[in-house]
């Protein structure tokens, strides 16, 4: 029998085939050994413009296009490499200091090795994506060199060699090859090839082999603005050195479990995995929702929190029952407790400081004094972090942590940065530019949190500007809520119509733009929006039909005509997800040209629209609905106020006004039907900041007025959304983009319903949205008209948030929109400012056979990704908008003091929260704010009453109406100007 053994001898390609063997473990814990072929080749170019040899053999793609060469022929030099240089970073350099590589002042002509890219991808996907972004940028000149596939630079792992050692050797070999290769080009000035690494061993070996090699610090020092960049190098670099220095240092935190121990623990149900959330009132208390229990687990105290930061995915272990506690009824602010810590002295002053201990003591006293076991909640301790959710944080340097010498010299100094987000612990930062950075808003990242360090350590990224300047605060806000605010890149602007502002609806009906479009230019259409609205998404009309019924039309800007699926503009819009409205600024989802002109349904001009037309009886029963692409000409753009005046003015009897009156009458009936079905009318304190027109400085704050015309527009938009949702679900049962609002779990209302029962003797029934709506209606206090609104505001906070989803991911009963009491719902009416609407437009267009369905609109995986992103963006946009209002309210009140009515929303044992509806703000009043010497207080958790004695005697109850003096105050902890309230 002939041998089947592969004979390599006779094969000319044998030397070029290698294989890669690695072992991986799957999610289910299986270990797999993977063997992959590797074809080694010699035609992988060096991509240097100095080299002509490689240019001749450059690879071509299927269309015959050769890849263009990236690395400059005259790269920048440094003090040590005046001839110019190419950089070759190793994985750790990129892992630690990606911010450096993204600088625009240095770090050009960088060679990224394949092995480095692979390692980076395995270690951190976000960093990998950032690096891919850099390689795509034209001006940064990053080139990915596939060293593993090039014959000369391929390295086989030796016997007994660790993977890391082998990879380091591969990096050195590639650096050596580059140096030799470039030397052969005979160029006048041959650039040095410099390896960047923080691994001392690797650096030493590289130097032994005669290669250029630097650590990040050494390299940055050679640069012109080295001092500035030096701060961007993270702490971890010197860690090895620091460890040597202080061998006796004690570990403050318990060690994390190993990953496999955690995974087996979670699998067997002994440990639980979940997202860690820090309480907004108490930085030493957090909670974790895990699937195994209906209620969240509490995590109390620094040691149990064990270095987790808000948002991290952690694994917890439930503590024994005798350690279960109630959630703290106290407000504990990090700033107040750890005020005088010294950032340099680490760990010398005991782990849990005296003050912290005292704060916690109160808790213990309380739980032990009462024997009501039932109130205690299960607590847990964190035993490991599966995934960190660290991002870049905006904050400012804590003035008190700066030493005198730090303010003058350029000596490296440790300071604390206090993040704007109160849930994030303060971050220890080492910088040489303390003097410059004091009083600025700065962006920092967390690098590490060692067992031996009380606070996480991080590094400085960049400065946003002076505290309390409009530019810095706005940018801080946008960064904090991850809003994409950079101007649109050229590739996006290239997708706009060439005619620019001169674009018009084609005059000839034969034009392809008119294909399958209905001509609705004759209809009396008008739009009703807030004052000064530029991006008009929607317009309406109504007209009587011969049979006594009424035709109602909702016309939505036809954005999908201009934004085609999958081009650069579409991708950008899908990343941005939504337009963000700040008080003084709007961050658009689509370029201005489309948003405020071509798509906007401006009056007196013809525009493309997507129309929903209903036939309704005068009782607002729907006879039929129809969807069509159309051309419309809006007769007028009203503001809510204008429209209201016109409707109320009996002398106006023109057709347009009459049609608005018809719409108004219909909308009332629609609203009534919705309410009967159990729709909730919820509330949130909303205010409007009035600006001075010239300087755009805030001058006054007004609560928003509610007009009938607002509910007119709202009702018809809801109706359009519901109709469209049903249609696209019918056409695409698996992939329709819909919006749902889950019913809140009953336990969410436990506290509120108890509070109402105890304080007001009212019952809150939460069986269904209808029951809830009715019981909310019954929550009235005759002496206090605002009480009902207050309860609605508090009930709103117990709800889940609505979310977008792809219809295939949920069962039909789960589609329900709880708040609107609608079986099915989507967003269709604002495609200029929401991406979900744009997708719904495309799906509807396909559903009515207007255009072929585009694959990206049908791919479920892709739609799920889109939904996930826009849910986050939507939430962030809301938060950013609110934060912006809060900032401007603070600015508007600057230097003024007013007395206002407020309502007590929440009570702690050492303070209470007051909501002032006039300004839509809520603020904490602490006991120590009541009088100069903090009064003694007794807190009765059963009746939600706080009684103070001593220096000032007051009794504060929940829901109580109080009179407060509102002044402005700069909040030292967050650096934000906010309001300060005093009880009068």
């Amino acid at each position, binding site marked *: 029998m002939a041998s*089947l053994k592969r004979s390599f001898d006779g094969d000319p390609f044998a030397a070029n085939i290698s294989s890669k063997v690695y072992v991986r473990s799957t999610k289910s814990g299986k270990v797999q050994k993977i*063997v992959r072929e590797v074809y080694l080749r010699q035609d992988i170019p060096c991509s240097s413009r100095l080299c002509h040899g490689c240019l001749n053999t450059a690879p071509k793609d299927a269309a015959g296009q050769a890849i263009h060469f990236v690395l400059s022929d005259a790269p920048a030099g440094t003090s040590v490499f005046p001839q110019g240089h190419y950089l070759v970073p190793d994985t750790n350099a990129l892992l630690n200091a990606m911010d450096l590589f993204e600088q625009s002042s240095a770090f050009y002509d960088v060679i990224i090795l394949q092995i480095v890219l692979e390692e980076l991808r395995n270690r951190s996907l976000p960093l990998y994506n950032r690096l891919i972004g850099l390689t795509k940028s034209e001006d940064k000149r990053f080139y990915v060199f596939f060293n593993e596939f090039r014959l000369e630079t391929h390295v086989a792992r030796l016997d007994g060699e660790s993977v890391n050692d082998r990879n380091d050797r591969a990096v050195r070999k590639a650096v050596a090859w580059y140096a030799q290769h470039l030397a052969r080009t005979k160029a006048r000035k041959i650039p040095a090839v410099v390896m960047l690494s923080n691994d001392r061993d690797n650096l030493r070996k590289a130097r032994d082999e005669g290669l250029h090699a630097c650590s990040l610090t050494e390299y940055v020092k050679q640069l012109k603005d080295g001092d500035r960049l030096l701060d961007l190098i993270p702490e971890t670099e010197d860690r090895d050195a620091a460890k040597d220095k202080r061998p006796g240092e004690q570990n403050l935190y318990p060690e994390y479990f190993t990953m496999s121990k955690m995974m087996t623990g979670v699998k067997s149900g002994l440990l639980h995995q979940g997202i860690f959330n820090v309480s907004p009132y108490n930085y030493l208390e957090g909670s974790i929702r895990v699937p195994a229990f209906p209620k969240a687990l509490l995590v109390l105290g620094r040691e149990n929190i064990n270095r987790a930061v808000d948002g991290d995915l952690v694994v917890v272990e439930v503590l024994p029952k005798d350690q279960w506690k109630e959630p703290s009824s106290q407000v504990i602010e990090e700033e107040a407790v750890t005020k005088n810590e010294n950032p340099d002295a680490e760990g010398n002053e005991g782990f849990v400081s005296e003050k912290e201990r005292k704060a916690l003591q109160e808790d213990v006293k309380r739980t032990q004094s009462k024997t009501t076991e039932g109130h205690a909640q299960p607590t847990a301790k964190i035993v490991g972090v599966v995934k960190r959710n660290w991002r870049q944080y905006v904050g400012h340097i804590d003035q008190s942590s700066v030493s005198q010498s730090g303010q003058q010299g350029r000596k490296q100094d440790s300071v604390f940065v206090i993040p704007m987000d109160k849930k994030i612990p303060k971050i220890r930062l080492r910088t040489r530019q303390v003097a410059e950075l004091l009083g600025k808003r700065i962006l920092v990242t967390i690098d590490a949190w060692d067992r031996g360090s009380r606070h996480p350590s991080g590094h400085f990224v960049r400065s946003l500007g002076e505290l309390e300047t409009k530019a810095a605060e706005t940018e801080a806000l946008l960064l904090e809520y991850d809003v994409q605010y950079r101007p649109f890149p050229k590739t996006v602007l290239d997708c706009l119509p060439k005619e620019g502002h001169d674009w018009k609806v084609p005059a000839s009906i034969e034009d392809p733009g008119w294909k399958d479009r209905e001509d609705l230019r004759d209809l009396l259409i008008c739009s009703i929006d807030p004052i000064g609205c530029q991006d008009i998404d929607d317009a309406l009309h109504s007209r009587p039909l011969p049979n006594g019924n009424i035709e109602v039309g909702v016309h939505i800007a036809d954005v999908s005509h201009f934004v085609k699926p999958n081009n650069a503009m579409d991708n950008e819009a899908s990343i941005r997800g939504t337009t963000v409205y700040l008080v003084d600024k709007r961050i658009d989802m689509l370029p201005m040209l489309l948003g405020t002109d071509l798509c906007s349904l401006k009056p007196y001009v013809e525009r493309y629209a997507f129309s929903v037309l209903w036939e309704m009886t005068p009782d607002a029963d729907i006879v039929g609905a129809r969807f069509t692409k159309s051309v419309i000409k809006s007769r007028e753009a009203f503001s809510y106020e204008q429209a209201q005046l016109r409707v109320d003015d009996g002398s106006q009897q023109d057709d347009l006004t009459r049609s608005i009156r018809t719409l108004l009458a219909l909308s009332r009936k629609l609203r009534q039907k919705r309410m009967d079905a159990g729709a909730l009318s919820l509330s949130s304190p909303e205010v409007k900041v009035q600006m001075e027109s010239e300087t755009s400085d805030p001058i006054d704050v007004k609560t928003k007025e509610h007009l009938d015309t607002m509910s007119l527009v709202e009702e018809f938009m809801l109706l359009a959304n519901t109709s469209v949702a049903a249609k696209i679900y019918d056409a695409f049962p698996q992939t329709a983009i819909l919006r749902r609002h889950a019913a809140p779990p009953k336990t969410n209302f436990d506290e509120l319903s108890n509070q109402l029962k105890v304080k007001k003797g009212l019952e809150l029934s939460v069986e269904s949205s209808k029951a809830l709506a009715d019981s909310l209606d019954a929550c009235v206090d005759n002496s206090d008209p605002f009480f009902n609104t207050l309860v609605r505001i508090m009930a709103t906070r117990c709800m889940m948030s609505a979310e977008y989803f792809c219809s295939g991911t949920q069962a039909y009963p789960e589609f329900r929109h709880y708040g609107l009491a609608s079986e099915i719902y989507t967003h269709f009416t604002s495609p200029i400012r929401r991406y979900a609407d744009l997708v719904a437009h495309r799906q509807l267009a396909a559903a009515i056979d207007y255009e072929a369905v585009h694959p990206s609109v049908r791919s479920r995986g892709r739609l799920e990704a889109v939904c996930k992103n826009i849910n986050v963006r939507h939430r962030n946009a809301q938060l950013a908008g609110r934060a912006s209002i809060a900032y401007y309210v603070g600015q508007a009140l600057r230097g003024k003091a007013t007395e206002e009515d407020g309502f007590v929303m929440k009570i702690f044992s050492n303070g209470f929260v007051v909501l002032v509806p006039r300004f839509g703000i809520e603020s904490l009043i602490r006991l120590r704010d009541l009088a100069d010497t903090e009064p003694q207080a007794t807190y009765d958790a059963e009746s939600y009453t706080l009684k103070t004695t001593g220096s000032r005697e007051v009794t504060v109850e929940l829901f109580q109406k109080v009179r407060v003096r509102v002044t402005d105050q700069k909040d030292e902890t967050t650096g934000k100007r906010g309001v300060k309230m005093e009880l009068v």
Partner: protein
Amino acid sequence: MPLDTSAYSLALLRVDGRRWNELRRIHAQIRTQAAADGSSYLEIGHTKVMCVVTGPSEPGSRRGAIGSTGGGVGGGAVGGGAAQSKGAEVAVSIVIAGFSSVDRKRTARGDKRILELQSTISNALAASLHTHLFPHSAINISLHVLSQDGSLLAALINAATLACVDAGIPMTDYVAACTAGSTSTYAANDEAADPLLDLNHQEEQELPGLTVATLGGSDRVAVLVCESRVQVSRLEGMLAVGVDGCKQVREILDRVVREKGRRMVQEGTVEKGVGLNDMDVD
């Protein structure tokens, strides 16, 4: 873990270092089992298959024939279209070894995927083999998969062709097969995607692909199987690359056959016949 297929655009290199139009290393042998009528062994990269042909012979009881010694997979696909009396039937049976992929798997009895492979191969070969010369007889093709790394159907077709040549069954031309794919996923909808030749396992998992077999060096397509979603605009490019790949595969198969023939003449196993006149024996 290595990079995935999305890294192609960085330097026009695939996950294993090939360019878009390159085949993997193909290694083939024929007459590996002296006792069989025809046999072959073929590797495309790490995909390794073996083939044994028995016949043409009298169609005995279907259980006794070599086709059903496969154990795990019962029966075999019968093809040829022609009625039993007119020509030989081509029965194909495939056995996929439990150790052939990363996870040890048992193939279920009557696995639909395997049945489909069997009938595809049976139909393709029946079109090329001159079955009308052997009425009332059966050709049993037994295929064994030793290792899998993508392009399995293509490897099986190529191995079966070689074994039929070895068995001396007259045929029109080689049936040569290979796979083709595209560099970006269906959902990415990237117009500028390059076509790819000869997909390995990872590429098959992540990218759209098809298997194509042609009759010898001609453009006549004998098999075309596409089991993934792909935009119709990319199909033409993929097919062109695939057909081009089949021609390369045919050359490789032809070389293997001629080399073996030359060796056999040298060793005196066979006499130099008339048909071998044009062969360079020295």
